[in-house]
């Protein structure tokens, strides 16, 4: 104990003496360090490994395309093991000891959030995530607590929720019941769906949250049925979704289903029975097309001999590229400068730059000449709103005779118009 105490006090004392000189001098030395925190082991490990490879591919492209201000990037990857304390510790190490200029990560909102509140926001380091969906990030940005240092490259649940509400209103559903998975994903989705439905003239007559992996959802289904709705909105993953849909049908609920993106799965349709789902529709983020998307997909396929279809792979590539571009634009590599530069990769009058090393080299040349750029990435155009969230194109899917199909697509322009209509 005496040794431990001595160490503690000694450190505190040493730090106290040095504290006044804690000026964050930014060294312009090579290489430029960028941190990455992703779940490489634990329950998200299988997903996280692919996402990490995508980040490594992006930094390879950045280095082949000229790096950052003439320096190569050193990408320091750490595992968060899906645990908040481990992720926070790794982030603190990267920011303080390695002095990374920016950070990308992580997947779970429950890990990304404490990193933001205890490390990146207080230290003024930009954090861009590929995959954290929680609405809490938007709230923290609105209240100013995140200092504008947080960005994410995946469309938030708001996109899906607003588009779903729009279609419900077009179909004339006035009284809607909602049964949703009790995670930040489900809760956030329902909040936005409620806002949008109210604005579009409908009403949520019942809502029930459920915990995953239960044998039956009769209680939740009964809460929904008791309100006598026109339609029901299920926010669930395929197995649970199929269970509750079957119960809903067998208890005589109206067969007007609104489904979330995770239910766009043949497993779900088969488990429920296609004949009951002819009036169902759902929402998904439309995978944007175009040469920049194809270039990324081909590069990923060539490098890892694996498809780039998995969750988070394309959005992680964009997160890394945004960091690379913003750091080149920034006058220096301080946190505030990089934060402000993230806003400048999407100049409406800029020259379009895409994915891959050649395109990055083109961007670097343009930036050097002081010309504006417009990044169109692995997920299409990446446009951050005031809170660091991105919007995306949406797709309405349906089920006809047991086959999943696409009803129509809402472009980014349609979505922006819808956002304006609902948010004012």
């Amino acid at each position, binding site marked *: *104990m005496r040794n*431990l*105490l001595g*160490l*503690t*006090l000694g*450190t*505190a004392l*040493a*730090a*106290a003496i*040095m*504290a006044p*000189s*804690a000026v964050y001098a930014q060294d312009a030395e090579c290489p430029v360090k960028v941190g990455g925190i992703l779940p*490489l*082991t634990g329950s998200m*490990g299988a997903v996280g*490994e692919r996402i*990490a490879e995508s980040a*490594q591919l992006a930094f390879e492209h950045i280095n082949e395309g000229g790096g950052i201000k003439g320096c190569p990037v050193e*990408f*320091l*990857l*750490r*595992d968060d*093991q899906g*645990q*908040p*304390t*481990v992720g*926070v*510790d*790794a982030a*603190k*190490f990267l920011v*303080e*000891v390695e*002095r990374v200029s920016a950070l990308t990560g992580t997947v*779970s*909102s*429950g890990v990304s*959030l*404490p990193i933001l*509140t*205890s490390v990146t926001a207080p230290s003024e380091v930009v954090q861009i995530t590929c995959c954290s969906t*929680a*609405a*809490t990030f938007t*709230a*923290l940005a609105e*209240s100013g*607590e995140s200092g504008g240092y947080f960005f994410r490259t995946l469309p938030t649940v708001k996109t899906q929720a607003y588009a779903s509400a729009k279609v419900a209103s077009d179909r004339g559903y006035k009284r809607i019941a909602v049964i949703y998975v*009790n*995670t*930040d994903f489900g*809760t*956030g989705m329902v909040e936005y769906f409620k806002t949008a439905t109210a604005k579009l003239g409908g009403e949520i007559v019942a809502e029930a*949250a459920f*915990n995953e992996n239960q044998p039956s959802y009769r209680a939740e289904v009964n809460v929904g049925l008791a309100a006598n709705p026109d339609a029901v909105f299920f926010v669930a993953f395929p197995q649970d979704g199929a269970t509750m849909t079957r119960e809903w049908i067998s208890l005589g609920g109206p067969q007007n289903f609104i489904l979330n993106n995770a239910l766009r799965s043949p497993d779900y349709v088969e488990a429920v029975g296609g004949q009951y789902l002819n009036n169902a529709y759902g929402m998904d983020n439309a995978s944007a097309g175009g040469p920049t998307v194809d270039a990324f997909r081909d590069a990923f396929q060539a490098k890892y001999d694996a498809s780039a279809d998995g969750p988070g792979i394309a959005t992680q590539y964009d997160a890394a590229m945004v960091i690379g571009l913003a750091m080149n634009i920034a006058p220096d590599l301080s946190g505030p400068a990089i934060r402000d530069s993230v806003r400048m990769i999407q100049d409406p009058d800029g020259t379009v730059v895409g994915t891959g090393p050649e395109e990055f080299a083109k961007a670097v040349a343009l930036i050097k000449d002081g010309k504006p750029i417009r990044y169109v990435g692995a997920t299409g155009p990446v446009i951050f709103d005031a809170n660091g969230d991105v919007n995306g194109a949406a797709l309405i899917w349906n089920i006809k005779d047991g086959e999943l199909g696409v009803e129509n697509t809402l472009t980014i322009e349609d979505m922006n118009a819808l956002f304006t209509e609902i948010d004012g």
Partner: protein
Amino acid sequence: MIGIVSYLVFFLTVVLIFGIACLGLNLQWGFTGVFNAGVVAFYAIGAYTHAIITAPPNPLLIANLGLPWPVGVLGAMAAAALAALIVGIATVRLRGDYLAIATFGIAVTVQLITLNWQSLTGGSLGFTSIPRPLAGYFDGQLSYNIFFLGLVAAATVLVYWALERVVRSPWGRVLRAIREDETAAVALGKDARLFRLQAFVLGSVIIGLAGALHASFIGFVSPFDFLPILTFQIWTMLIVGGSGNNRGALLGALIVWGLWSGSGVLVSKVLPPEFQTQGAAAQSILIGLLLVVMLVFKPRGLIGEEPVVSRHVG
């Protein structure tokens, strides 16, 4: 250099918070033999109570009180005491593995309550805006973190000192007597159930204190912070450090947490980039391996319990 100091301050704060929880568990398991497999339940109760008491009012949550930090800490300890009392009265008859199952169930229950009682805890979205004590008086992040480390160190010293006195008192000797041979202790007229309950409640209060410090240090809590893995980590710290020895509990927190984060640094430093995505698995193996090696060569922990021999002998 300044960066390393800044990281070490942060690291030590986390170690000491775990260390406090470990001291609480040590009173329960190390001295009394009460198998609490629901450490994280009391940690979560402490953290959420502190958050609810100190966070500023929020229209989305019913009970944010915005009270001062010390009230939050004391409230967290009181809530943990109350919860432990209720749990303890119901389960203190149980021994060994039965108690482990019961307390594990309680930990899962508490986690599910924090997830589902959205109007109180923020549910899956987590609880934000937990204030940090006296944050307005410091202009730099580092100087503040040093202050907070001092605060946590003071709490650790206080808990350590109090526990050292308590376990050396006649009360502490009864606890050890119960641990060694409950029947013999009962035969000597000691109410074993009452003592076990007291140790369980007191230990849980200390764990609740650690939870409160965690909440105010990180400034955010969510149900995701309180998964069973945390119980496992705190147990590992105690076993590695040496259960039945308060210095061992603190040393265990330092060693195990150091191993956990140090192995991550090692993997990211040593492995070339193309192997790093697989390297994380190596980190898990490394942690497991070192723990096994430590337990094989030091089965009683790094500093095991001091042998107690009556001063009248010899």
